[in-house]
């Protein structure tokens, strides 16, 4: 079971991973975008981080919804609505829950992915955050369906996200700012895919420790 405390801890962990990788994400974006992905994400997750203490009294769905609203209203750019949509849909998928079963976790992640897909209309291979998020969700769902635990499934999903992130390097971008570069986008890792990897890694770390 994933508890509310796990979720809060995860958000905290992700926020610090973003803070630590702010420069790195920005540099990745400088190469094929406009040099602000780390700045954007950090602006949003600092706000999220400040709000975490208020979340103790809320259910998981409401927590995720608050995170979504904060991101939507503070990140801007492409990643604001995309991460915002991820958390908004995730929130709806687990309405009213105080803790999450394996199946709830599948619904949460799948809904989040759908949110990003619907908002951004990118496809796998377009060199976006989808390239990390989609294989991660597929793997998670698969591993759970094999009867494994959520921590184990998330760990494998994180590996899939990392592979997906690295797989963005050799390909041409077809969505987002990087798409204007055409072939010049080759040989650069997508910043959004990288922050998605950090998100899964944070969850994996939290579940590994806490459970």
């Amino acid at each position: 079971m994933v508890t509310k405390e796990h979720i809060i801890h995860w958000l905290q962990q992700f926020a610090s991973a973003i803070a630590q990788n702010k420069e790195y994400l920005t540099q990745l974006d400088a190469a094929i975008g406009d040099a602000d992905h780390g700045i954007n994400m950090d602006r949003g997750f600092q706000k999220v981080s400040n709000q975490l203490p208020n979340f103790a009294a809320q259910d998981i769905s409401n927590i995720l919804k608050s995170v979504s609203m904060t991101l939507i209203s503070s990140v801007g750019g492409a990643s604001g609505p995309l991460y915002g949509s991820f958390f908004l849909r995730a929130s709806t998928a687990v309405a009213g829950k105080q803790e999450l079963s394996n199946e709830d976790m599948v619904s949460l992640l799948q809904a989040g992915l759908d949110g990003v897909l619907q908002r951004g209309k990118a496809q796998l291979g377009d060199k976006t955050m989808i390239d990390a998020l989609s294989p991660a969700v597929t793997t998670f769902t698969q591993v759970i369906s094999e009867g494994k635990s959520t921590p184990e499934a998330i760990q494998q999903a994180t590996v899939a996200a990392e592979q997906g992130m690295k797989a963005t390097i050799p390909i041409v971008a077809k969505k987002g700012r990087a798409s204007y570069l055409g072939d010049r986008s080759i040989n650069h890792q997508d910043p959004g895919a990288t922050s998605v990897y950090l998100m899964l890694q944070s969850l994996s770390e939290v579940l590994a420790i806490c459970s």
Partner: protein
Amino acid sequence: MKKLINHPENFVRESLEGMAKAHPDLLKVQFEPTFVYRAVAPVPGKVAIVSGGGSGHEPMHAGFVGLGMLDAACPGEVFTSPTPDQMLAAAKQVDGGGGILYIVKNYSGDVMNFEMATELARAEDLRVLSILIDDDVAVKDSLYTQGRRGVGTTVLAEKICGAAAEQGYDLQQIADLCRRVNLNGRSMGVALTSCTVPAKGTPTFDLGANEIEMGIGIHGEPGCERMLVKSADEITEILAMSIFQDVAYSRTVQEWDENKRGFVDVQLTDPEWEKGDRLLAFVNGMGGTPLAELYIVYRKLAELCAQQGYQIVRNLVGSYITSLDMQGCSITLLKLDDEMIRLWDAPVKTASWRWGI
């Protein structure tokens, strides 16, 4: 980095505070969420025109808030799309009952944030439509990219739609007009130097002392080709010819469908231009280029348009949609019809654009 700023994080805020102090008769500035709106707003019954986008393109958009142009502008961080709550708050502030048109530049961030804003506004029963500007011919196809960027035509659309709103056009008419302006406007830009984003503190791209970057957007993103420095006439020819030779650009965009209460796909294709067509020629400075140089570009552009059989019947020369301190320029050509000309000539009174009043 040497700039007239205090802390990079306060760049947008302090600049807007300066605007508010300088133009209390024209505009007001609201923070958290941040938007700039007309001093006298809403205007009852009038369609409200709201635009916005990353900051760093001044005077666009906040400098165009006022009579005959925008009702509100939503400035994001430098080169970062503003957020839906800004757009929603701006729409509520200026809604005079005639509905709201969002004019949106086609960047993934802007598009998604304005889409969310539209959904939020619709959920609150505000009548919002939005039109995308995607006029940058440097981006060739729409299938394998985010589609063409929104650049110079944005400024022209804001002027023309702003005048239409003032004259009592209804929301659907203005949305149709804005779409028509976009389909008839084509742009391309060149950078002689990179810009420097305050938060980053160093130039976004490195350009050699003898290099220029052709086909840039307005965010310091690299262009489509790097070449050796050329004369003003040669540069103007490359930009203008890219526009003249552009073939009917097609793309699918999302527009809100009032019956279906949701976004639907709309297929759009730029109409071809013909000899004898009347054009508005807009030579725009990127922020660090002196006005005298823009007139040198205009001189050649006028010659080239005449050679191609086009008539320039209106023009605009100056720095209206910029990239911070970047040196360079963009050319926008807009095929005009009588209605657009009439609206172009209508009075405007904003911080950075004024005539007829």
